[in-house]
């Protein structure tokens, strides 16, 4: 049961982050294709977005790791 809980935590966290990251990258690429001169502003937005989205699977993985080994 412990391993199942860890697997669900990592899997669902990764799924959400994958969808979120994909949407961020898609929007950024589309925006740069439409307006290449706005690339600097878009890279800032993308950096913040990707960073915040990736906090979730990171936390999930650490929690799963702790569930498994503690």
């Amino acid at each position, binding site marked *: 049961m412990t391993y199942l809980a860890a697997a669900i935590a990592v899997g669902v966290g990764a799924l959400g982050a994958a969808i979120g990251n994909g949407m961020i990258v898609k929007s950024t690429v589309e925006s740069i294709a439409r307006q290449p001169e706005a690339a*600097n*502003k*878009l890279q800032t937005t993308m950096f*913040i977005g990707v*960073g915040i989205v*990736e906090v979730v699977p*990171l936390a999930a993985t*650490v929690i799963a790791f702790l569930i498994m080994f503690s």
Partner: protein
Amino acid sequence: MDDLGSIVKAVFRITFLLLFALLFGWAVLPEYRPILAGFVLGLAIGLIYVRFLSFKVRQFIQLVVSEEQRKFSFGFITRICLVFIAVMVAVKFEQVSLITVIIGIFVPQLLTIPVSIFIGIRNKA
């Protein structure tokens, strides 16, 4: 200067200030040493995390602008391995608090939000 560079620099400055305060606290308050050591370790790993992510985002934008077609990765495995090293150290050594390591890792990343808002307001004014 581009905004991303100034945001990362500001985050670095604030985190280094925090690190200085925590190291000072580590030297002065021996009874809180595990908590402060955990924070220091977490912040250091968080800084590397933020720098690596900003490098990767910059690389990605350059790739998109140049219209070059090749594989690209954001280096999530590298970053998660960095976090695991910190967590392993905290689990292995009782001199380092695990909870504060985990909190410290996320601090520089979450710090980018207020810093970017502040820089955005400053640039508009």
